[in-house]
C-alpha cells in the first residue's frame, strides 16, 4: 500500500492541488451571481483519507481494484447555501454547466432516522480546466460536488469528526445523541426555509 500512498501523494501535489484551485475559481465564477451561497470550496482528497478509502473492505472485499483510477472524489467540491430551496435551485443549475454521471439526494434510509443529508453529483471535470499546451490531463475524468445547507454542512463536519472515524467506538447513547443533533439540524433547516418562503 506504500506504493499507492506515494503514487497518490505525487498525483495530489502535481495535478490535484493545482486543479482544485482552478476548479474552485471556475465554480465561484459560475455561481457568482447566485444569492445566499455561504461558501464554495474545492479540496484535493488528503493522502490519508484516500488510502483509507482504498483499503476499506466491504464484506471482506475491497471496493476498488484500481483505486487511483476508480475513486471518483479525488477532487471534492462543496457549495454551502443558506436554505433548502437554495440548495435545490442550485442543484437544478448544475446539469446546465457540467455533464454528470450520477446525482443522489442522500437522506436517511428510514423516516424514523435522522442523519447525513445532502445532494451529491459526480461530474465530468470541464474541458476548460485541462491544459492544452502541457497536455496535462486530469487523473480521472470526474469530481464530486456536494450541495448542502449551512445546517447540513455544520452537522456533517462535526459528525465526521466525532462519529465517522472515532478513536473509540461510540456507545448507543452517544449515537442517539448524534441522531438528535441531526434531527435538530433537519428541523432548523425546515423552519428557516419556511421563514424564507414567508418573508
Amino acid at each position, binding site marked *: 500500500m506504500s506504493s499507492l500512498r506515494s503514487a497518490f501523494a505525487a498525483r495530489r501535489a502535481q495535478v490535484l492541488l493545482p486543479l482544485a484551485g482552478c476548479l474552485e475559481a471556475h465554480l465561484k465564477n459560475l455561481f457568482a451571481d447566485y444569492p445566499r451561497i455561504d461558501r464554495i470550496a474545492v479540496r484535493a482528497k488528503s493522502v490519508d483519507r484516500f488510502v483509507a478509502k482504498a483499503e476499506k473492505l466491504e464484506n471482506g472485499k475491497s471496493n476498488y*481494484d*484500481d483505486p487511483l*483510477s*476508480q475513486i471518483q472524489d479525488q477532487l471534492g467540491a462543496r457549495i454551502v447555501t443558506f436554505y433548502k430551496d437554495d440548495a435545490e435551485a442550485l442543484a437544478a443549475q448544475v*446539469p*446546465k*454547466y*457540467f*455533464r*454528470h*454521471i*450520477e*446525482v*443522489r*439526494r442522500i437522506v436517511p434510509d428510514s423516516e424514523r432516522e435522522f442523519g447525513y443529508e445532502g445532494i451529491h453529483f*459526480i461530474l*465530468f471535470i*470541464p*474541458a*476548460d*480546466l*485541462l*491544459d*492544452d499546451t502541457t497536455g496535462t490531463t486530469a487523473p*480521472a*475524468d470526474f469530481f464530486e460536488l456536494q450541495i448542502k445547507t449551512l445546517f447540513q454542512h455544520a452537522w456533517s463536519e462535526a459528525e465526521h469528526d466525532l462519529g465517522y472515524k472515532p478513536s473509540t467506538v461510540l456507545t448507543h447513547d452517544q449515537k442517539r445523541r448524534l441522531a438528535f443533533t441531526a434531527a435538530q439540524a433537519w428541523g432548523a433547516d425546515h423552519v428557516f426555509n419556511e421563514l424564507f418562503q414567508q418573508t
Partner: protein
Amino acid sequence: MDIGSIHSFLIHPGKSAEEPREINGASVPMSGKLFGMLKPVFATAEEECPHNIAFVPEADGKQKNECRDCLIGYMKDSDLQHGREVAKRLQCVTTHRSGLGLLFLMIGKEASTIKFVVSRFPADSGILAEEKAKGLTVEFLERIFMKSATSYKAAVYSGSSYTKDFWKGKAADKQINSAESYIADYWIRDFLRSDFLTPGEAGTRRLAIAVRETMNRCTNPGVKMDAVALHHLVAGMSSQVVSAKKLLNQFHVPDSTQEQIKAHFPRAKLFDENFSFVPEEFLKHVAIRIVELDNGGILAAEAERFDAVFTREVVNAPANLVRFSTQGRIVDQRFRKVRP
C-alpha cells in the same frame, strides 16, 4: 490499432412495433473488399466523429446507463449474440423515416487499450450498369448501403477499464442539426442514451464570455463593430448544434475577429467543440452594451435594445463625430465609484 473483429446486422425499423423483425447478423471476414472499406472507418473514427459525447445516468440518478452496459457487454464478449443486443437497441429506436440501416460493430485491442466503433450505414437505392460485349444491361438495385455524406452515423469509444472508462466517446451524426427532433435525437440521445459532453449552457457561456472579453479588451474599432453585429445576429438565432467556429463562419465574421475571440477561449481546442447553442444563455453574458464618447459621455442600455434606445447620427464622418439622442422619463440615477 488493428481491428480484431467485425460484426454486421441489418436493422429494420422497429420503434413502437408490436413484433419487431428478427435481426440477422454476420461476422465480417478480416480480409477482402468489405474489410478494406471498413478498415479506414475504424482507423479514422476519432477524426470522423466531431461530437464529444457522454452517457447520461438513469432517470433515478444512478451511475448506470443501459446503452453503456450493452456496449460493454459486447466489448467483453465480441460475438454475434452480444452484438445482437446492441442491434436490438438500435432497432427499438429506429422509425420508418429513419429507414433500413446496416449496423457495423468493430473492435480492436492493443495492450490494455480497447477501441470500439459502432456505425450505421443507411440504405439507399441505385442503378447497376453492366457493359457487355454487345450492349449494356441496367438494373435497379435496392438495399445499397453506403457511408452517406448526409446520414452516416458512428460513435467511437476507447479505454482500458470497463468500470471506470467508456463514459465518454465521440460521435458522428450528419443529421444532428435537423429541425426534426426525431432525426436529431435518433442516434445520440435515443440509441446511445448520451448527450454532448459540454452542456449547451456551458458551451454557450464560454463563447459569450469570449465575445464579451473581445469587445471589452480589443482596441480595434472594426473588431468591436463585428462583436456588436454578432450580438444582433445571435440574439435572433434558434437553438442548434454548433461550434464557436461554425457559428462565426455562419455569420461571416472576419478571420481577424475570429482570432480575437478564439484568444479568449480557455483552450484553443474548445473553439471547435460542438454544443447545443442556448440563445438565452448567450444574452445573459452580454446583456449591457456601453458606448463611451471622447467628451466623457457614457451611454448604456440592454445590448439587444441599444440601437432602439439611442438614435445614432453621423455628424462628421472623416472626424468620426457622431451624435446620440434618446428620450424618456428618468426612473433612476446612480453614482458608481469606477467607470463601467
